[in-house]
C-alpha cells in the first residue's frame, strides 16, 4: 500500500489515532507528576501556567486576529489580585481565584474597547501602553498600601487543602502541578469547544473580513470585547496560581512586564496561531528550548541587549536565531509543521454529511493546504 494512508474523519481508526495521541500526552504529564523531581515539576508547572495564558491569547490573537501586547498586565493583575487578598486581607488562596477570573474578565472587556476602533499597529501600541502602565502602577507609592509598591507582597503560600491527596508542605510542588494541569485542561477544553462552534466561526470571520462578518450578522463589538475578556480571564487565573507558587509578587517579575507579553505572543506564534494545541506546544518549546539555549553560553549578553531578560549571554542569541528559523520554516508554527509531517503518513479525509435530498455524486476532495485551525 502506498503512503499516505487514508483515514476517514470520525472513523474507528481516526478515533484510535486520536486516543493514542491524546493518551501519550496524558501519559507524559501523569508520569512527570508522579516521578519527576521537585525542580523538574516546578518548571513543568510554570510551562503549564504560561500555556494557559497562551490559550487565552491564542483565542484573541490567533483566532480573532486582535493583536495584544498587554497580556502581561492581565497575568500580573491576576497575580496581584490573589496576592493582595491573601497577603493583605488573609483570604484563603483558592477563594481568590474566582475573584481574579471575574476581575480580569471585566477589565479585559474594558481594555478590549479600543479594539472596536483600532487595528493592527495602533492596537498593538495601545496594548503596549497597557503593559507599561501596569508596571508603573505596581511601583506607584500612592498604591503601595495595596500593592506593596516596589517591594511587592511576600510570604504567600497555598498549602494543599485537607481534601486533596497531597501531604502538606512536602507535596507543595505536586499540588501546584496538578492544579495547573487541571486549569490548563479546562481552559483548553473551553477554547477547543469555542473554535468548533458558531461563535468560533464568528471569531475567525472577524479576523478574516470584518465587513463580511457584520453582513453575516456577527456583532463585531460583542465578539471582540467578549474574547478580550475571556483571554484576560485565562491569563488572570494563570497569574493567580503563578503568584501562589512563587510565594511572592513584585513589579520586576518578568512575566508582569512587557517582556511577559512578548513571551506569551512568541509562544502563540511558535506553537501555531489559531490552533488548539498551539499554545501548549509553543509554551513547551519556549520554556525548554530557552532553558537549553541559555546553557549554550553565559554572560551579560551582547551590548547588554538581553540583560535583565534572563536570556542573557549567547543563549539569548541562540534562542533568537532559533525563533527566526522556526517562523521561517513553519509559518503556521510547530503544530502546522507537525500536521504537514503527519500528512505524509496519514491523510485525514473529511466526512461529508449524509444528504437526503441531494445526490452527492462526487467525493469531496481532501484538504490540500494546511491553514490554521
Amino acid at each position: 500500500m502506498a503512503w499516505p494512508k487514508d483515514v476517514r474523519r470520525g472513523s474507528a481508526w481516526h478515533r484510535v489515532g486520536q486516543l493514542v495521541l491524546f493518551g501519550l500526552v496524558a501519559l507524559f504529564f501523569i508520569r512527570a507528576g508522579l516521578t519527576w523531581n521537585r525542580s523538574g515539576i516546578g518548571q513543568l508547572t510554570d510551562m503549564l501556567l504560561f500555556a494557559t495564558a497562551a490559550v487565552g491569547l491564542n483565542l484573541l490573537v490567533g483566532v480573532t486576529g486582535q493583536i495584544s501586547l498587554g497580556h502581561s498586565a492581565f497575568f500580573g493583575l491576576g497575580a496581584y489580585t490573589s496576592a493582595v487578598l491573601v497577603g493583605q486581607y488573609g483570604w484563603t488562596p483558592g477563594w481568590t481565584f474566582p475573584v481574579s477570573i471575574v476581575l480580569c474578565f471585566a477589565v479585559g472587556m474594558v481594555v478590549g474597547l479600543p479594539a472596536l476602533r483600532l487595528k493592527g499597529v495602533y492596537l498593538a501600541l495601545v496594548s503596549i501602553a497597557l503593559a507599561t502602565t501596569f508596571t508603573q502602577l505596581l511601583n506607584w507609592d500612592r498604591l503601595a498600601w495595596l500593592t506593596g509598591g516596589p517591594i511587592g507582597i511576600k510570604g504567600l503560600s497555598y498549602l494543599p487543602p485537607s481534601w486533596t491527596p497531597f501531604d502538606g508542605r512536602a507535596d507543595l510542588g505536586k499540588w501546584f502541578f496538578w492544579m495547573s494541569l487541571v486549569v490548563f485542561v479546562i481552559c483548553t477544553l473551553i477554547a477547543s469547544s469555542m473554535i468548533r462552534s458558531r461563535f468560533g466561526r464568528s471569531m475567525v470571520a472577524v479576523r478574516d473580513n470584518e465587513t463580511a462578518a457584520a453582513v453575516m450578522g456577527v456583532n463585531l463589538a460583542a465578539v471582540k470585547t467578549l474574547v478580550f475578556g475571556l483571554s484576560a480571564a485565562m491569563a488572570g487565573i494563570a497569574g493567580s496560581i503563578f503568584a501562589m507558587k512563587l510565594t511572592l509578587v513584585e513589579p520586576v517579575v518578568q512575566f508582569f512586564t512587557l517582556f511577559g507579553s512578548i513571551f506569551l505572543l512568541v509562544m502563540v506564534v511558535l506553537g501555531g496561531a489559531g490552533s488548539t494545541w498551539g499554545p501548549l506546544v509553543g509554551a513547551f518549546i519556549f520554556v525548554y528550548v530557552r532553558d537549553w539555549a541559555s546553557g549554550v553560553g553565559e554572560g551579560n549578553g551582547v551590548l547588554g541587549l538581553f540583560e535583565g531578560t534572563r536570556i542573557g549571554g549567547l543563549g539569548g542569541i541562540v534562542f533568537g536565531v532559533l525563533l527566526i528559523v522556526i517562523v521561517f520554516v513553519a509559518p503556521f508554527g510547530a503544530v502546522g509543521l507537525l500536521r504537514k509531517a503527519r500528512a505524509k503518513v496519514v491523510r485525514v479525509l473529511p466526512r461529508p454529511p449524509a444528504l437526503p435530498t441531494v445526490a452527492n455524486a462526487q467525493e469531496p476532495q481532501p484538504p490540500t493546504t494546511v491553514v490554521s485551525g
Partner: protein
Amino acid sequence: MSVLQVQDVSVRFGGIQALAGLSFDIDEGQICGLIGPNGAGKTTMFNVVSRIYEPTEGKVLYRGQDLLDVPAHGIARLGIARTFQNLALFPTMTLLQNTMTGAHCTGNVGFVRSALRIGVRSEEKRMEAEAFEILARLGLAPLAYRPAMGLPFGTLKRLEIARALAAKPSLLLLDEPASGLTHSEVDELSETIHDVRDQFGLTVLLVEHHMSMVMGISDKVVAMEFGRKIAEGTPHEVRNDPHVIAAYLGTEV
C-alpha cells in the same frame, strides 16, 4: 406588497455624490434588475441597505421597517443577504465553513453556550448539512473542504452566492454575480437564480452588466446613472428608454 422601499436616498463621499435622491420599490417575489454604467452608485446602494454606509438623506424600508434603525449585524436576521462584487469571503476558512458562517443568523450558540458546549453539536450538525446541500446545489461540493484562499475567481463568485443563500434570506442582493464567469456558467447562474427564487419564494435585487442575463430573468429593471434613477419598468420598456440608450451610448442594450 413592497419588500424594499428606497426613498430619496443620498450618499456623499467628500466631493462625490454617489447617490442623489434615489428611489425605487421592489415587490414580493420579484427579480429586480439594477443596471447602470460603472460608478452609477449600484454598489453604494447595496452598502446602504447592508448598513455599511450611512446615507446623508432618505429612508430605506424593509417590509415597512426603517433599516436605518437597525445595526449592521441586525440586517441578516431580518432576512436580507447579499453578495459582494469584489469578493468579501473568509480566505482561511474552507468553502464549507464560509457557507456555515453565512448561516450565522440562523443559529443561536453564542459565547457562553459555545464555551460550555451546550447545544453546539446539534447546531453544527444542522448547519453543516444545510451548508453542504447549498454547496452541492451550486456545484461546489467537491471543493467543500478546500480553503477559499487561492481558488479561481469564478468559483469564489459562486461561493458568495452559496454563503448568502445559507442565511435563508427572503431578500437577496446580488452584486454582479456573473462577472468573471464563462458564457455557459452565466446561463447556469441565471437558471440557479430563477430556481432558488421559485423554491424559496425569494425576492432578488440583481446588479449586473450582463445585459442579456438581466433582461432575461428580471421581472422589472431599474436603470441608474450618476446616483439617480433614469428609468424603471419591464425589461422591454427600459431597453427602449431614450435615457438608458443615451447612458449606454455606443454599447448595445
